[in-house]
């Protein structure tokens, strides 16, 4: 399917067969089918293989630093709330280098679609452990295998009462697209953690492994039940995929900052300075 988000790419830096291609395709289609305007959308990314995604799309792009997509995305959303803002990157990018920003972003609850390509490895730097690498995973650095428990982004997000927490799998097109659409439609912060096989550096968590180790949540599952959601978050082998948690309505960052400062809805670039008021305020300092 062709979309308005397609870009002609002469030189893609991903390995053939990498799960990133599927995520890119699902994302473009989901955005297209949701009727989004590429010119009014922006993808902010960090550094890593996953973070290259916006390079291969027709969309506004801020390809920043490793770990720093979320703060840039939040600033952008406050600066111009009419933009659809996506913050995208890998598991190392978002959960490792950007871990503090990840927690703060969940709590701030700006309307941001936080897409994390979770391949359980550092791809770009050639195969070291990531925060989500499973125990025993051997790498050139973790020569005896990873000896710590993997970071659980889903449980963490639920504990911070994230507005919406989703997990999906790049290899399940229907599911992945459906989940992306739910994320795109949501007001407030969304974590969408996407299992993604890295064919080059992760020979353990392969396409088949993911396929065998996930199951779809059924329609009768209630994501608003926080305790149930926690239980789901702690399940592994197989891992549940779907909308795992939907938090109660809460304050949205861009609305709050704009209400508090009485800026209103207009983008900040259209603000003007009230010099008369400035004169009055300065008079108080005599």
């Amino acid at each position, binding site marked *: 399917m062709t979309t308005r988000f397609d870009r002609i790419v002469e030189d893609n830096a991903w390995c053939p067969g990498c799960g990133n291609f599927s995520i890119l395709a699902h994302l473009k289609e989901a955005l297209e089918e949701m009727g989004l305007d590429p010119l009014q959308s922006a993808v902010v990314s960090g550094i890593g293989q996953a973070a290259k995604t916006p390079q291969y799309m027709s969309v506004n*792009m801020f390809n920043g630093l490793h770990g720093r997509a979320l703060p840039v995305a939040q600033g952008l*959303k406050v600066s111009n709330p009419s933009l659809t803002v996506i913050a995208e990157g890998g598991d190392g990018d978002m959960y490792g280098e950007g871990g503090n920003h990840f927690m703060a972003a969940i709590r701030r609850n700006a309307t941001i679609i936080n897409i994390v390509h979770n391949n359980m490895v550092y791809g770009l730097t050639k195969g070291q452990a990531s925060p989500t690498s499973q125990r025993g995973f051997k790498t050139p650095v973790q020569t005896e295998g990873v000896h710590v428990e993997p970071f659980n982004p889903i449980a963490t997000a639920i504990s911070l009462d994230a507005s919406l927490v989703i997990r999906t799998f790049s290899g399940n097109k229907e599911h992945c697209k459906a989940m992306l659409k739910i994320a795109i439609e949501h007001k407030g912060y969304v974590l969408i953690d996407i299992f993604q096989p890295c064919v080059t550096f992760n020979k353990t968590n392969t396409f088949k492994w993911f396929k065998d180790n996930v199951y779809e949540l059924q329609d009768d599952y209630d994501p608003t039940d926080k305790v149930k959601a926690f239980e789901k978050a702690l399940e592994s082998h197989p891992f549940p995929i779907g909308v795992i948690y939907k938090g109660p309505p809460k304050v949205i960052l861009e609305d709050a*900052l704009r209400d508090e400062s009485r800026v209103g809805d207009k*983008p900040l670039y259209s603000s003007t*300075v009230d010099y008369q008021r400035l004169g009055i305020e300065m008079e108080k300092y*005599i």
Partner: protein
Amino acid sequence: MRDSVSILIGGKAGQGIASIETLLTKGFKRAGFYTFSTKEFMSRVRGGSNTTLIRISKNPVNAPVYKADIFVPLDTNAFYHAQDRITKETFVIAKKGNFECDCTFYDHDLESLAKSIGSPIVSNTIAAALVFGLLGCDVKVLRGIVEEMYPNELLEVNLKALEIGAKLGEDNGSCLYCIEPTLSATQTKDFFLSGTEGVGFGAIAGGCNFISSYPMSPSTGVLTFLAKQSQNFGICVEQAEDEIAAFQMGLGVWYGGGRSITTTSGGGFALMGEGLSLSGITETPMVVYLAQRPGPATGLPTRTEQGDLELSIYSGHGEFPRIVLAPGDPKECFELARSAFELADLYQIPVIILSDQYLADSYFHVEQFDIESKQPVHHIVKTDVDYKRYSLSDDGISPRGIPGYGEGFVLVDSDEHTEEGLITESMSVRNEQNGKRLKKGELIRNEAIFPEIVGEGEIVVVGWGSTKHIIKEALEFINDTNIASIHFSWVYPLSEAQLAPLRNAKQVITIENNATGQFAKLLKQHGIVIYAHILKSDGLPFFVDELSEKLVSVLKEIR
């Protein structure tokens, strides 16, 4: 009659020094004096020993002196803390027996007096009124201020305290410290501003509409100032999880077309290094207010130093242009903070406003000035379909588009990128883009603000940033026509025009509030020969009397 008087108030944190300072500084200014105040304090919320120095004068006064004419120790520790600042002539207002000194004692137990009218806490008001009376000032002025400050049930007892204090002051009769007011009625309506407030108002004038910071002394004042003004001027305020995020959020805001600032001190600025670099390569504007305190690491959290000039110039990996501005007083804080936004936007670079604890926390008499009410120019273009964020241009500036405004995509990239903004490893494109960014450095140099020169002598004394008025007054005191002084408020990058006056000097003496002469090193890079450095890095600013002595001894060597 005296030309100027220095009043030192010492006490524990939380003992009410601040209320005496407010009462007296407001009172003195309204009573017709040029007034200046500065404070030094410990990094603790309660206890310790802190002082506030207030100077009043017939002439403009904008700098601290070390020796006190009048000293009000609010407790015993204060006395020992400030012992060195007392001379034979110092008039110490305190209960005799509590301390020993070769000074003039005004033996009064203010606390007991306060208790006698029913409230020990009003001893501060008694102290302020006493000082006011001693100087022969009209206590009616002070009364007006007390009425403004205490509009509630505390008013009556404070007015009583005021009368007691004023009477004690007058009774002392000798008028040893009396001083004639000089300000005209309009001058008493001049501003009384700190460096913090100068930067805050300047940022507002520059169109700042977003601030994200992580609190750190002595920069936090600007954060709280802008938060307080948030609703008046539509400024979105967000406390960041760390300085890394504070800077990055700011970049996101600028990318979207807003104007943001972040505020920090050295430790936080160190964390912003990668952000500066990102601003450099993505050509996303950013404004940082860096209020210095002594390092390394946590150093002396509440004290002052000019120790981060090199950090501000060299921080951030890779090579990219930036501007570092170092205001010398609150008026310059206003002007430079305002232009920081314009410069950042115009050149698409990071601009650093370099202040320090001394300037941030000191109050200066600032002549009324017209705020030019010209709206900030947003250097933003509406994009067309073929828009390229990093199009090559003669001057290195590519028209800056923002997402959602026009028909084109705005692609910005921390990787080396094509004109379009996509990642590339082409060496020729690298050279073009790197060259384009660095070319802006030359344009910027041409914008450099010319340093302020006083005097025409062949011996040139150089200062930068917050030492401006301290050096000025020291030289006025020395009164030697052979000396000129030059003050830099634009410290990086330096232009040949700025340096020319130094090249013609017979001897150059640099004065810096740091241990290694960081600005002198920068001057040396430009081939300026430095004859002598006067340095200080104990956490306090220079004092006029101290600096004058040091200068005199350097000048002796020259002759």
